[in-house]
């Protein structure tokens, strides 16, 4: 297998081009390059993005660079710049943001814990009205003034039943905050308003992560947004929601079994607030 890390291989090898483009922008700082990214790799990745050709070699390079940045973030002055597994990267981020997990959990579970924790941090910074709007946009009812316990309970329900929604909202806001553009893919599983209305509060919460938690190493500016993006991509592949009605479908479904919508249009759908 060209990507030896199975937790990355299962997400990256057949990922949508648009999602890979966002990962490339996160790794290369939207093509501007980074101190610890060689110019040849930066060029190779940005060329792939500009030509929209993501062959296996490019996909493997994305995985390799992410592994290397992960190694850079993991107290690695003595490691000599070796890469680390994606699971180690995810566990490190989870540990630093104080998301509950254990090493026996799979990446899906660890990523969910990270998503929930970051959303919790975001909600803390929102006004009561914003919290009410947020929960309403994801199908929950929050009464302003209910207090932190009620908010935590709603978030727990949402984390259990609507993790795809949460990860989509968070990934969209993260991509917008860091690379200046959101997700390309839209699904009826997530209300359009939920994608766009909370980019601001989530963006501020994400940019506060570096010092709110012990994430000051420059490499975290890559690994944290990438973990959030990969978490969304993994969920999208797992749940494969219908682009029209949100019904979860088998991965190879060409049409929705519920509404009949054709499903092979991911690269052509665009996220709009009035769709």
């Amino acid at each position: 297998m060209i990507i030896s890390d199975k937790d990355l291989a299962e997400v990256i090898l057949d990922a949508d081009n648009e999602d890979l483009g966002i990962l490339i922008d996160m790794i290369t700082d939207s093509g501007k390059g980074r101190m610890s990214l060689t110019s040849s790799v930066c060029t190779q990745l940005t060329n792939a993005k500009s030509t929209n050709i993501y062959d296996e070699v490019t996909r493997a390079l994305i995985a390799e660079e992410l592994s290397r940045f992960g190694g850079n973030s993991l107290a690695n002055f003595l490691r000599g710049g070796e890469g680390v597994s994606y699971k180690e990267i995810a566990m490190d981020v989870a540990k630093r943001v104080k998301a509950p997990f254990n090493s026996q959990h799979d990446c899906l579970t660890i990523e969910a814990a990270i998503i929930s924790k970051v959303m919790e941090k975001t909600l803390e910074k929102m006004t009561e009205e914003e919290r009410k709007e947020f929960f309403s946009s994801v199908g929950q009812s929050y009464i302003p003034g209910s207090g932190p316990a009620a908010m935590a309970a709603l978030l727990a329900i949402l984390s259990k039943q609507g993790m795809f929604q949460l990860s989509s909202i968070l990934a969209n806001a993260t991509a917008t905050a860091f690379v200046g553009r959101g997700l390309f893919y839209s699904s009826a599983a997530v209300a359009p308003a939920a994608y766009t209305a909370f980019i601001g509060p989530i963006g501020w919460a994400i940019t506060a992560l570096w010092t709110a938690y012990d994430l000051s190493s420059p490499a975290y500016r890559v690994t944290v947004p990438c973990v959030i993006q990969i978490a969304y991509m993994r969920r999208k592949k797992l749940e494969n929601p219908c682009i029209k009605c949100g019904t979860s479908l088998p991965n190879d479904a060409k049409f929705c079994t519920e509404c009949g919508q054709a499903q092979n249009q991911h690269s052509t759908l665009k996220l709009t607030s009035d769709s």
Partner: protein
Amino acid sequence: MNDLEAYRSTHMVGMQVSENLSSVLRVAGPVRDAGLHSPLRATEVNRRSGIARSTLRAITNPKEGSAPNPDLHTLVRLAEVLNLPAAFLLMSQNDWLSIIQAINGIRDPHAAAEKLVNNDGTAPPKLLEKVLSECGLHPDRPPAGGYENRTELARMNARNEWRVRMCNIYTALFDKGGSDRTSKVLLTALIASYINITTPHDPANQKD
């Protein structure tokens, strides 16, 4: 910093000196057979440094509720006896951990410093700021999206201002000229990394 905060801060450092000195004196004596350590006795400290035993006792065994406040002369003489830089007697475990974190995060700042410092050892003005900027660590920028959060924006601006000020302070402290290029690059990288990891989350409230 008000008087109470200043008192607490001095008290903490005083207690740290007491703890450091006590720990070191327990093992600083002659190495015994089989490599075992031995304490450095107060009489020996007195003989080598001229520091009275009572003065030493006041530092290593302060009275309940009070913290030692040795003067600079005492601190320097004690450090000389122990073959330590005087500053090390003042340092807490957190201080050391910060330096370790700074070393661990040195990779990118080192690459940036290598790029910015000229072959003859000269460098552009505001070198530390430029290194942090090259690494994407300064200034903090608001997230895209146009959403205004005045509290967060104020905190972000405070962090940026704090960083610039610390860059000026550390430049004045360390940039005395005369060091070779390699040393300059390494020192710049280390300090830039240190400034990055010690930038407080909220400079207006540095207790967090």
